[in-house]
């Protein structure tokens, strides 16, 4: 009997540990184009103590540990590049607390987006969270860890900006807390205590987040989405600027795609609007469509497509079936909004050159401070040639992001390398020190964000 396997069984119980080929096979994959790498073991944990014991074991035996939430980064961030122990965190899915007055929820790391949405709708209908476009099985913590953004990104920012506190297991097995909870004051704020920035954006390379306190926001009675359409992509930055100035909108997204044909060569702008009454809704609609965008309508440059009085939550995505192939991956970037036109044009050109119907999306973050711009490439999982084409297009797009003055968001190993090469040497050195300090044996998700 493999002693490491036995040690893992002693930690989590036999039913939740596997070194069998079926589990090793399934957990070797990211859902995108990343090459699979098999772990040596898979373990599904239920408690923080489980995780502490696992990392202590891993340090002792010098085995990598790769934490996995929903597994929907589509950048290979939970592929065990150097084998080791794949840590499936999804059984840690308790919603610990929802504080209505201070508007936050304390969650275990395995709580999914869909679960939180349903829970709030049922028990706290006046509250909502910023839900990303990822499938509802994506975890809240996973999304914060990769600096994701949701449908409240405009006006509230990245989901990682909406964190009040964390519980973290360090690579050496200690448990730490960040935010007001660290002094036993509850989970209501992350400031003014020292930063938790050592664990967000590091993609599991510095520790494992086991609990999060996430900010919640008012859920108004009416939530819906209106759509505006322009042909000239050059108009998008100014439209977004004007819309953010109104302070009347929630999520603002601009997108264009080759399929279906009605979307091709056009820029659709979706604007989420929330209101507690018809009066409030009409007031906001008047400001947004009539006052702010009216000039485009009158000139014939932009068209109002209507307002639908409901939000699809969780959002349903069919992108993976574009090539009837069960696969897609995208390059996400954080970009200045005024680069939208070039992002669109150059992205479209890359897609067309690789024979992939183009799909581009820009989501406004904050008060127009920047946007998440994504280029999506579908592939057919049964056809390796299409996977290779998608991979080439993705790498080319990673290069494009930097060329256009943006930052690659949640990069895979290819994009990480590009960023690390460009990183300020002082910052690089600090990152190296941080990584060394927290993870002296380099067990945490090795192969990712390796500064050396």
């Amino acid at each position, binding site marked *: 009997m493999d002693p490491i396997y036995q040690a893992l069984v002693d930690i989590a119980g036999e039913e939740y540990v596997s070194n069998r080929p079926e589990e090793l096979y399934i957990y070797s994959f990211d859902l995108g184009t990343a090459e699979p790498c098999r772990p040596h073991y898979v373990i599904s944990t239920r408690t923080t103590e489980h995780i502490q014991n696992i990392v202590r074991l891993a340090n002792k035996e010098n085995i990598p540990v790769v934490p996995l939430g929903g597994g929907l980064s589509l950048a290979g961030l939970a592929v065990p590049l150097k084998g080791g122990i794949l840590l499936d965190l999804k059984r840690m899915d308790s919603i610990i607390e929802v504080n209505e007055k201070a508007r936050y929820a304390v969650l275990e790391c395995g709580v999914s987006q869909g679960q939180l949405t349903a829970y709030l709708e049922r028990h706290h209908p006046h509250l909502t969270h910023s839900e990303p476009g990822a499938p509802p099985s994506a975890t809240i913590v996973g999304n914060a860890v990769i600096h994701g953004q949701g449908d409240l990104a405009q006006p509230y920012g990245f989901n990682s900006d909406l964190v009040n506190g964390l519980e973290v297991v360090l690579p050496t097995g200690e448990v730490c807390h960040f935010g007001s909870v660290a002094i036993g004051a509850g989970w209501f704020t992350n400031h003014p205590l020292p930063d938790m920035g050592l664990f967000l954006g590091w993609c599991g390379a510095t520790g494992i987040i086991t609990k999060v306190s996430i900010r919640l926001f008012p859920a108004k009675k009416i939530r819906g989405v209106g759509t505006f*359409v322009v042909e000239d992509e050059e108009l998008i930055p100014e439209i977004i600027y004007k819309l953010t100035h109104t302070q009347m909108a929630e999520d603002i997204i601009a997108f264009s795609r080759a399929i279906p044909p*009605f979307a091709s*060569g056009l820029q659709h702008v979706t604007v989420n609007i929330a209101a507690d009454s018809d009066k409030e809704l009409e007031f906001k609609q*008047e400001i947004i469509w009539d006052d702010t965008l009216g000039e485009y*309508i009158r000139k*014939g440059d932009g068209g109002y497509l*209507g307002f639908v*009085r409901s939000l699809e939550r969780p959002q349903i995505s069919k992108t993976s079936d574009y090539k009837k192939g069960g696969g897609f991956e995208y390059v996400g970037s954080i970009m200045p909004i005024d680069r939208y036109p070039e992002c669109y044009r150059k992205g479209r050109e890359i897609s067309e050159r690789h024979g992939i119907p183009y799909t581009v999306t820009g989501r406004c973050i904050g008060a127009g401070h920047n946007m998440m711009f994504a280029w999506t490439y579908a592939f057919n999982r049964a056809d390796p040639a299409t996977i290779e084409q998608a991979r080439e297009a993705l790498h080319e797009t990673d290069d494009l992001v930097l060329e256009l003055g943006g930052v690659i968001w949640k990069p895979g190993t290819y994009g990480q390398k590009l960023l690390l090469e460009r990183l300020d040497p002082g910052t690089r050195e600090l990152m190296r020190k941080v990584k060394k300090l927290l993870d002296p044996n380099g067990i945490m998700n090795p192969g990712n964000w390796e500064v050396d």
Partner: protein
Amino acid sequence: MFTLNFDVEKCLCCETQSCLTRCQYLDIDRDSAQEEILKIARGEDSFVLHNCVTCYACEEYCPMGNHPFFLIVEQQEALNLLPVPRPLIKRAVNLGVPFRGKPEIAEVNGPVLNMAAFSELVGLIQGRLFKGLTVISTDGRKMFHYFCQLMYLHYAKSSVIKERLPGIIDTINRHKPTEVICFHDECYGTYTSYCSAVGIDVPFKPVHFYDFLYRRLTELKDAIRPVNLKVAYQRPCSSRLSPDKHHFVRDIFELVGVECVEREYVDENALCCAGAIQGQRREGSRRRAAEIQRKNIEDIKKAGAQTCIFNCPACYQTLGTMLAREGIKPMHMSDLCRLAIGEKPTGRR
């Protein structure tokens, strides 16, 4: 290629100029109306071309059968006075482009029901009313091969209609139908009124959906139990192209035992759903559409309707939820008929 059969002499002889004087969205006297329609006929600009909300009603109002609405649309296109912003036109034109392969054509040699661009609603077509009837355009991926194109009248794109329609007719005809029952009123209007107006040949016999439903209900008369609901009817804009079939609405209501409530905006005075108005270029279109919808719904409510009956899925999509919020249940006419013969209506999924 296909030319609109418009005769200016008819307008000159017309005593009423009802096309414009009866328009619910224009305030115009008879003499000014004649002036404007003649300007339009001559290819000149007219405020009518800018203000038309594209509700189709003047096609019905015209006592001469002279197709004033079709003329307005052609002249809007000729003078580039497009009522809708350009991106929405491009979007609409591309919407009708089929892109998921060709449909499988099986020869029927019998009557067919054509779902056209509403394949997604094929779930409504079940039960005894439709037993044994072949339905075509049931695959949402291929439905634009059956799309009658008449929607482009709202976008001043008669050219697109004329370019695509012969191919659509050919696709339908390859099924070798003895008659084509049109699920959507607008298809019926296309294959009767529009094609005849511009000289497009229609080799099959179009049948109005309500004509078919009435016929089937009569055959199943013994199974009918009065539904006993108070209903209103949302008359679609395209119904103006087939006013001779509009009587079937009341005929069906009588047969199934519903009370058609007394309304102000009914029959020739019906209000369009305003779905095509909200995005128009003209200043205030969004609010104008909302006001029309408000009036329409208030009228239905005031008349005491429990249910509002629809033919057009676009009207249903535009008004359905608003009505439901007011406690008035939206229902397709075919579902009402199914209810009358004791079946469970499909509803809207």
